[in-house]
């Protein structure tokens, strides 16, 4: 009796599972998946016989598109507000006979949304924001996105070749292509250009420096330490204020003085531009040790916010508002905010930025430069039709032209901007990076759909960045670390994940021990203990994997 009932129940569950199973398998997207094993490194694009794009690139803007094309787009966006004017929608319809149906989700939700929609076969035609950090690699492998060879994409969007001209020659076809392409020679995510190559520099409080008699910004670690000591002595404030639950983020800013990149947590393997060394695993190198010793001194001498490891950023800000914090590696564009923060306690606060880059080698100063493309990239679903792809690419191509750039950065003449003395000026009612009052250009649908802001916008409205490019990017003494190109096989990826889960914990733990003074990196016994722990966690195996991948990936 009980037996029959339990059989019945089991049958029920099985039936349900089978029903569910069949439902799942029928919705796996089918498409050509790129070869995932990295046997050969791909530098030369594969020249395919069949060209998928039919429309040559000359027709842009002038061509009449008879058929209206509709695209479902998934975008990262914050609060959905009804736009005051639909400038973008109108332009799309007029110029490209294209209609967009946008769905907005918060950035952190994008990954879940994409995974679920694709699993159910309900994916959008175009995704506006994908990044490896959110899983775009796995999605590419799963065949979600459409791939383009270099020839194909340049046929559709020839403007890509020149989008990075302000930063150098042949970037798209060279480094960027190598970085983004898969072993089959195709890219699956489409990049856009960052406004400028970089946007961070050392900032300092001129009022403090003046009062302490420091005339020049420190140019190497020793001077840096000395300046901090002087500031603490003379003004009784804590010169460095920062807080993070990942201490590596804090010291990586100082690490640049030794050529260690600002994105240290992400780059255990790279070539040091200042010393020329290659690290297969940087966290037990002598250079890293120097950095640890530096951090040890800073904290033990009271030159740093004591609760750096446990405070929230709000609390750090509150601490800074009391008058602390005299120098920092930060965004020059934020100086006005910093001034405002401390004005009440320190009336003559005066934050400035400097193009001095402290370094152990005065002729080779390492500067953080962002990768050429923005973190968010775009992608077509492999289920998008050729027509949709062509039309959207036509729009993207137009966005790389002078006309397109103007539209995306300034808007429509007479509506959102005027031309005054030959220079474009955004109308007063709108807020800009220089002027907080006013409504955002986003209310007119301007500003979030372009490929690059363009040099005119940058030099007019974010002059700091233009200055940055002049003073820092073009200074011959400055050298830049670019992320190494690392193409892993599946097995390597899972092994690296496995090892790093433990090793990262150990590295962070020891860093905290060093910084809180419980262990001394200058002391050989302590340092060797640290190295021994890493050894016991199989760091040797990790180094070998990194080395292999590095060499294979064509760096």
């Amino acid at each position: 009796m009980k037996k029959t009932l339990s059989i019945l129940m089991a049958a029920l569950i099985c039936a349900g599972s089978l029903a569910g199973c069949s439902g799942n398998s029928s919705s796996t997207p089918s498409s050509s998946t790129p070869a995932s094993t990295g046997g050969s490194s791909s530098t030369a694009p594969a020249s395919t016989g069949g060209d998928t794009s039919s429309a040559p690139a000359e027709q842009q803007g002038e061509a009449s598109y008879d058929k209206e094309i509709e695209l479902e787009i998934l975008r990262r966006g914050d609060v959905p507000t009804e736009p005051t004017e639909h400038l973008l929608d109108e332009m799309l319809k007029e110029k490209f006979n294209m209609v967009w149906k946008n769905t907005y989700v918060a950035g952190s939700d994008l990954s879940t949304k994409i995974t679920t929609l694709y699993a159910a076969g309900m994916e959008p035609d175009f995704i506006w924001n994908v990044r490896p950090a959110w899983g775009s690699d796995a999605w590419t492998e799963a065949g979600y996105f459409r791939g383009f060879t270099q020839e194909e994409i340049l046929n559709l969007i020839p403007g890509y070749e020149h989008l990075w001209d302000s930063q150098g020659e042949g970037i798209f076809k060279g480094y960027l292509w190598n970085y983004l392409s898969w072993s089959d020679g195709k890219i699956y995510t489409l990049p856009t250009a960052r406004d400028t190559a970089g946007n961070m520099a050392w900032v300092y409080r001129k009022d403090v420096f003046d009062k302490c008699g420091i005339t020049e910004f420190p140019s190497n670690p020793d001077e840096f330490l000395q300046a901090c000591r002087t500031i603490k002595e003379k003004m009784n404030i804590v010169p460095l204020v920062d807080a993070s639950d990942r201490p590596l983020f804090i010291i990586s800013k100082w690490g640049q003085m030794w050529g260690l990149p600002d994105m240290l947590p992400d780059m255990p393997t790279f070539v040091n531009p200042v010393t020329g060394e290659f690290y297969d695993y940087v966290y037990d190198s002598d250079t890293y040790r120097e950095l640890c010793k530096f951090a040890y001194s800073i904290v033990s001498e009271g030159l740093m916010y004591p609760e750096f490891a446990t405070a929230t950023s709000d609390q750090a800000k509150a601490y800074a508002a009391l008058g602390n914090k005299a120098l920092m590696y930060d965004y020059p564009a934020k100086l006005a905010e910093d001034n405002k923060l401390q004005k009440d306690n320190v009336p003559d606060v005066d934050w400035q930025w400097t193009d001095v880059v402290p370094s152990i080698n005065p002729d080779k100063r390492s500067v953080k430069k962002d990768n050429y493309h923005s973190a968010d990239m775009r992608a077509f679903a492999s289920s998008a039709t050729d027509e949709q792809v062509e039309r959207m690419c036509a729009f993207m191509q137009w966005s790389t032209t002078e006309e397109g750039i103007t539209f995306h950065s300034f808007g429509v003449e007479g509506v959102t901007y005027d031309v005054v003395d030959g220079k474009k000026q955004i109308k007063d009612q709108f807020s800009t990076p220089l002027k907080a009052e006013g409504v955002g250009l986003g209310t007119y649908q301007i500003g979030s759909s372009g490929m690059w802001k363009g040099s005119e916008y940058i030099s007019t409205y974010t002059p700091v960045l233009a200055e940055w490019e002049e003073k820092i990017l073009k200074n011959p003494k400055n050298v830049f670390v670019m992320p190494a190109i690392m193409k892993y096989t599946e097995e390597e990826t899972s092994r690296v994940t496995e090892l790093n889960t433990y090793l990262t914990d150990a590295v962070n733990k020891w860093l905290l021990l060093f910084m809180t003074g419980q262990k001394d990196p200058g002391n050989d016994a302590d340092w060797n203990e640290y190295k021994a722990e890493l050894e016991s966690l199989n760091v040797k195996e990790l180094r070998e994997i990194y080395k292999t991948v590095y060499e294979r990936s064509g760096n």
Partner: protein
Amino acid sequence: MIADKSVSSKVMDIIVYATMIIVLVVTLYPVLYVISSSLSSANANDRGLVTIFPVEFNIDAYKGIFHMPTLTRAFKNSVIITAGGTAINMLFTTTYAYALSRKRLALRGIYTIIAMIPMYFSGGLIPSFLLISQTLHLYNSWWALILPGAINTSNMIIMRSFFVSLPAELEESAYLDGANDFVIFFKIMLPLSQAVMMTVGLYYLVGHWNSWFSAMVYLNEDEKMPLQYMLRQIVLLSASLDQAAYDGEIVTDSSLYFTNYVAVKYATLVFSMAPMMMIYPFIQRFFVKGVMIGSVKG
């Protein structure tokens, strides 16, 4: 309550009231802190000046929230989803719990296991998503927010144990009068269970009111989004405005009111808490002593 003037009674009073005062202070503080921070200026918040009362009184954060054109709509959506959802919850949970509480129920053990296994094993997001969007075609519908959580087994168990505790005489005398289980359930047992129903109802209600994840996964149109989802978006927007000095990427409509990140964060909290504050006195009425009858004397 017994009027007892003895020493022990007075000692009890002291203990009771001392405890209550401590609890009040300890639990009132965070609430005050949250409210005050939401009413303080960005400057005061950044400098950590707020302790109990607002510093540099400023209602920008609230202005910003009320300025949102989608606010009333989101609020209305949440009310509908919460009311409808809780009703469904109660319907499914009380019936299942009551039936399970009767020893006469055949296959009782199996029904118990069926309810308990999902507490521990679940297929994950993707199978559920496939079921709801592909098989049941409920994507972009509020039913997708309400139905998957119709019964929370813990709540069901709480209810069941209460139903079991109801005296058997009630049932017996009702049978003698010719009633069947349905009638007994709806006309006798439920009215006696107000306290537990209010409690479990409150649990479900709060669950619906605070949820945003299901809305994010299963809804596609802004018109259908509930309040909590919208508030979360505001906080995220404010955080990005606060943090992204300039990374040259997404620049959406920067609303002036949202630049005071800390106040915005707390204002949205107050917004969610306020309805809960107002609901509870209503529910408390059902926790009055003696609702349970004296109709069955031992």
